[in-house]
């Protein structure tokens, strides 16, 4: 079966959620990206569309690629969001299967098996007859991403500011102004108005 690869990452939205495992996995990412490949072209075509999202494992090191591939879990499904035909002809439009993967750069990608068939003279998506289909992939990935360690708690008795905060007494009314009389050397007595 043909594999049609799209090199440019597909438009993607994603979000990362910190999770507590199973260890060492610490990140749940939700990824939604446009599907690669095309509906159109030959009258009958079965192929695998291979493409990557813009989501990349944080601080990815290529030396750890096999390790990431072994421990990460990705659960993905393709969903049509547009189906259209120019006329009332016979057709098949199908997203048969999906296989997620992590590429050499730590990006999450997908291989989607696509089938299409149109029954009329000519090629799909040419002249006046066409089929149009578009889909996106919705995926969850459970991964390990290095995170900065949280700061250690203060040693008891050594963090005055945090453990025994200074209490500022409430202040009522206008503060009294103080007038200080000094001589030319800055020395002098104090008097109040």
């Amino acid at each position, binding site marked *: 079966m043909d594999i049609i690869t799209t090199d440019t990452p597909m438009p993607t939205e994603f979000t990362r959620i910190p*999770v*507590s*495992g*199973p260890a060492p996995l610490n990140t*749940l990412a939700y990824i939604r990206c446009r599907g690669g490949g095309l509906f159109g072209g030959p009258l009958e075509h079965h192929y695998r569309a291979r493409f990557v999202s813009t989501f990349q494992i944080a601080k990815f090191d290529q030396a750890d690629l096999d390790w990431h591939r072994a421990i990460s*879990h*990705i*659960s*993905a*499904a*393709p*969903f*049509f*969001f547009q*189906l259209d035909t120019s006329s*009332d*002809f*016979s*057709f*098949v*439009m*199908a*997203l*048969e*299967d*999906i*296989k*997620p993967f992590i590429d050499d750069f730590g990006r999450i990608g997908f291989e989607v098996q696509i*089938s299409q*068939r149109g*029954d009329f003279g000519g090629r799909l998506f040419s002249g006046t007859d066409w089929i149009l289909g578009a889909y996106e992939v*919705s*995926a*969850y990935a*459970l991964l390990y991403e290095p995170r900065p360690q949280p700061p250690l708690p203060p040693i008891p008795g050594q963090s005055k500011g945090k453990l025994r905060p200074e209490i500022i007494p409430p202040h009522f009314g206008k503060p009294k102004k103080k007038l200080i009389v000094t001589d030319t050397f800055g020395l002098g007595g104090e008097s109040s108005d």
Partner: protein
Amino acid sequence: MATIILQAADRNQVSGASSLEVSLGSPTEQLIIFSGVAAPEINVNDADEFVDNEVIVKLGVSVSALESGVSEVALASIENDESRFVFATNMSTLEVDEETAELQLRVHTTICGEGTKLHRFSYQIVAKVSKVASRISGVIRIPQMMVDLVNKTQEEVFAMFRVTANRIPDEDGFEQPGPVVATGKITSRTFVDGNTVLEYVIDGCPFNTELRVFVPTTGLAQDLKPRQVTPPLKIVLTKFVPAVAGIDFEIVRIPLP
């Protein structure tokens, strides 16, 4: 309205089926995500009548409680033969099978048209659950005279032996593995009396379902096969008997035909 039941563990019924389990901090609470492309293969040939069906996708995970869950379902593969048509995945609900405690997705579909087929639909589910504390456990004994595993790393040995709990499809197919409902793991390796002994556990098996444990192997000689040496072959877990231990296997030499 017809009901079609599909097993997520069967690649011919659900392609690209995958799931992942996320710990939420509490030992019993988990977030489970399921995705797949289900293939109900619904076929109609009438452009004047709407045909409704109910499709149930058995997700292969048993839970003691479903706290909350959301599901998304959409068309994935459709076919029509030059007629007016309707394709619809009207409604989907996530529920627990009362008998087996297994999670399942119920999808209501409607189609209409000549030469019209709803081959597949995609689904994705996010569920917050409490897992069933069900377990099957035992050991696999491998005589060192047959397979010398002393110089292999623990990871290499674990990769050679898998354990699965399979649904027994029917009496005729008792010897053949049915759909996998739970996958176990090897927890330890020891050497005892000239044997390598691997301990295994299979967690999360469904209740009230006839199960059999299988040990698929890789890298063994063709005439070496795992054989269950302690009964019962047919295991049924219930809320009252949620765990069975001592389901032991031994690697034996079987004469080749």
